[in-house]
């Protein structure tokens, strides 16, 4: 999929663990793992909002469009 989730990069920048972020965003660690590993098919605005709030970033910092080769 041409949309890449750079959640791990932002998490590393903010020095926050997956478990802690999952708890703060109020999603299960399994769902956070799906999101981190680019397995997700869609992201709810509410989830994106919570992630941006907790990581203090913009949606563009977490999501990136990469052209298909």
């Amino acid at each position, binding site marked *: 999929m041409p949309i890449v989730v750079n959640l791990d990069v932002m998490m590393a920048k903010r020095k926050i663990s997956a478990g802690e972020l999952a708890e703060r965003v109020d*999603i299960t660690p399994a*769902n956070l793992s*799906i*999101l981190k590993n680019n*397995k*997700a098919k*869609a*992201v*709810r605005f509410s*989830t994106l909002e919570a992630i941006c709030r907790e990581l203090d970033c913009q949606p563009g910092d977490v999501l990136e469009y990469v052209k298909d080769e």
Partner: protein
Amino acid sequence: MAKKWTATKSLFLSRMLTLASLAIAVATLFCIPFLAEWYDAISGDPPIRNQLIVCLYISDALGILALWQLHKLLRNINRQRVFVPENAACFRLISWCCFAVSILWMVMFLTCIRFHEFIISFMAAFAGLVIRVMKNLLEAAVELREENDYTI
């Protein structure tokens, strides 16, 4: 409460009926030569015993395969595994069995020209088509469920 009871009972009854049909289909395998002879005796038309035996053996084997798939499908539903690709595969195989039976009896009709063979062929093809539509519906539902599961 009453609705749940009915749903559980209908599933149980369907499973029992499928297993009973499976047992009858297996038992029929041993009676096919006698059935063919009996048909020749009562039909009054020129005998077609050998063709009928071959046709009935193949149809019965396909019927057993279809019933076994139906049993697997109902077992999955009983385990709350409804929208899974395995169930769509069961529907696909059942529909192919129906189409194969339809072709077989159409060939039989074209060689022996007996109206009931055409009726069997038509009904099997119709059942195959309906099951095919159900398979497509289930595949769409599986895709939707997957999308829902992977929406975070």
